[in-house]
């Protein structure tokens, strides 16, 4: 009896086990892996991906997908950069507020477009967001003329690049601000999904739209709101990237969607919908971040990293499907 439970425990938490094994492996092969600086680096690199994954979890639970998140982040970052140029003397609180407002605003508008197309015009999510991904990337290049937006105030970079709470070994601060910001957003997204009626409705729609509809749930509204939420987290990711770089890059966020989808699926959110968790997606993000930095430390050629990430997604999906089949049998 106990043995079966142990098996189930590991089965349900594969991603945690993988994470521990990876950390152990990289820790053995690289002396700097567990240094405070590297851990702090991994955490801050995780953040943009974590923001994307927190919103993606919603649409993937619905049985959909949003591959436009990288482009949404790109557009939000550029608009934040232009907005930032208008206030060269901005204070830190003002800079944070500006970034958050732009991130939420741009993200919500993009999410609304996706949501209306998918929920009310019944466009297939994959095709819809593939199209908006392409279109929005075009928009980012049109707005900037293909050139990065430079000349932003130092305070603009506070949210994305600065650290607070200095220690002896890290006099510039041990905790990146972006980590704190991300934790707040992710915590909000996690609680909304796991504790509220709306979250329950997301799971219900993802499990079975017909049942949800006949149980009085407004399926279209739930779908729309989920895409808006996904857009918002993508927008917030975009402004964080802009802040981190202290400029607006038209190419920012490019291909980030693949990492975010990989993280979400690794975190156990089923691509066929109905189950998943924001918190678990964070473990997926950690696995991806550890693999990336680990490969950097081991000086693995960066093109190989894409191959590895691609294979990880395929592996995660195959495992998910195998599990589904087993449940059916």
């Amino acid at each position: 009896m106990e043995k079966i439970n142990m098996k189930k425990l590991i089965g349900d938490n594969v991603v945690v086990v993988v994470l521990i094994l990876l950390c152990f492996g990289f820790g053995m092969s690289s002396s700097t892996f567990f240094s405070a600086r590297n851990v702090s680096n991994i955490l801050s690199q995780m953040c943009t991906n974590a923001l994307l994954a927190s919103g993606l979890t919603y649409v993937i639970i619905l049985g959909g997908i949003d591959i436009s998140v990288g482009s949404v982040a790109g557009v939000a970052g550029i608009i934040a950069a232009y907005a930032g140029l208008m206030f060269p003397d901005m204070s830190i609180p003002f800079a944070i507020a500006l970034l958050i407002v732009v991130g939420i605003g741009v993200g919500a508008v993009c999410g609304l477009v996706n949501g209306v197309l998918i929920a009310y015009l019944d466009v297939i999510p994959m095709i819809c967001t593939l199209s908006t991904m392409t279109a929005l990337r075009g928009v980012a290049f049109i707005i900037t003329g293909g050139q990065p937006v430079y000349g932003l105030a130092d305070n603009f970079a506070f949210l994305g690049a600065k650290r607070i709470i200095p220690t002896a070994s890290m006099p510039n601060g041990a905790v990146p601000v972006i980590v704190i910001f991300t934790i707040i957003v992710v915590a909000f997204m996690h609680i909304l999904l796991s504790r509220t009626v709306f979250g329950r409705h997301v799971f219900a729609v993802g499990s079975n739209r017909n049942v949800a509809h006949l149980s009085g749930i407004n399926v279209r509204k739930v779908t729309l709101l989920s895409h808006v939420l996904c857009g918002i987290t993508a927008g917030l990711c975009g402004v964080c990237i802009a802040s981190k770089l202290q400029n607006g890059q038209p190419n920012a966020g490019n291909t980030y969607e693949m990492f975010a989808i990989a993280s979400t699926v690794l975190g156990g959110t089923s691509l066929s919908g109905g189950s998943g968790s924001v918190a678990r997606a964070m473990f997926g993000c950690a696995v991806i971040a550890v693999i990336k930095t680990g490969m950097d430390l081991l000086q693995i050629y960066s093109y190989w990293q894409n191959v590895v990430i691609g294979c990880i997604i395929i592996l995660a999906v195959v495992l998910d499907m195998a599990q589904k089949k087993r449940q059916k049998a």
Partner: protein
Amino acid sequence: MEPILRVKNISKVFPGVKALTDVSIDFYPGEVHALVGENGAGKSTLIKIISGVYTPTEGTVEYEGKEVSFANPGRAIDAGIAVIHQELSIAKDLTVAENVWLGREIRNSLGILDKAKMNRDTQDILDFMNVNLKATTKAGLLNAAQQQMIEIAKVISKNAKVVIMDEPTSSLSEHEIDALFKQVRILREKNVAIIYITHRMKELTDICERVTVLRDGCKVDTMMVADVTEHQIVNSMVGREMGDYYNKHKHTRGQEMLRVEHLTRKGVFEDISFTAYAGEILGFSGLVGAGRTEVMEAIFGATPIDSGKIFLRGEEVKLDNPAAAIRKNLGLVTEDRRRTGLLLAKNIVENTSLPSLPLHAGKFGFVNNAWERKVTKEYMDKLRVKAPNMYTILSTLSGGNQQKVILGKWLAADSNILILDEPTRGIDVNARSEFYTLMHEFVSNGGSIIMISSEMPEIIGVADRVLVMREGRISGELGEGEINEQSLIRLASITTDEPAA
């Protein structure tokens, strides 16, 4: 004359159900042989055995004098046994000719499709059938009757010797039925044996020579249609012993709960008017496809109506979506538990609270977990749901327990009008009996139940009053003392007999 096809002592057992018991029938070439019986009498199981979908548990099938055992439907088709299903299998984007030759396309010596020959051959068949259709027309542009002609052309092109037609007239108008019968006669002249499944008594005398009646998986009799009356056939379809396993109780009718006036959705149901009362189980009888489910979905706000009014407790309401209906204390237990009733991958708590969750939400829309657990426990106890605990995943429960969870979900939502669509389908006898008791309790406490059922014994055993639907209309009402199988069949089928006054 030698029979072309004989089934001998066929029995078919599914886990827990005996669908056919010792059935033997001979089918002769050049003859239309009708297969009649209630839903669940075993007709479809029998044709599935003949056409190679199922293998019989006992007994043999003889075709052209030899014992055969088709490994799959493809083998049966190759041998010359074709089925025209009730749901036509037409690829709408392909032409008539492409449909006729689908899967057996004619190729020239280079292995390239010989479209010209396929079109020519198809046109020859269509001309032979004397139907005004072009081989090159897209099938999607044709109506249901014309699409059926494609199926018949397919059968002719295969040189089938046995053709099974499963309720071929169910979606046709009178005029189209005549055209279909003409084709059936052509097939008959080509010495094809036709197995004809129908619910319409009139068609027996119109087109069939012989009729076999099935009841509860057994053959009642095979008769020459000319020798018997419709009445005799109907009588042999019914008449079984019924125990008191329905726990039939007398209920006292209370106030009016739901009144529907002239509800219409064009082409689906028309002019539906009825009243359901508290303290009453109102049965909805009729054949599958008579429009009963569609009416109930419309009342529940799941599908739109073209015209008509709905009154709840005397007050006119507009129910545009299920949420509105749920707020007015309506509950719908759907026909297909797995597809439209339950979140199979979720647990009992999540299923039970689903419709009522928003009404009991805490601040900021948080789920009220304490309420949710309390109400789930309450109804699991009341309805005697057998499960390890309230976090058990629904897919692991038995059909009867799943159905109880659905019932609990509507009781938790304070439903006092419950619409039950085939509530005991796929549930074993004990669970059924228990479910009927729960229905009785609900009605005794002032609730109102509308129960759709295609099983006549169930309607007779459970309902206080019955409405019968036929082809989208209410064809009659039966009160206490009038509910019996003869009346139900008479009202549900299309017969030449005048309905009794």
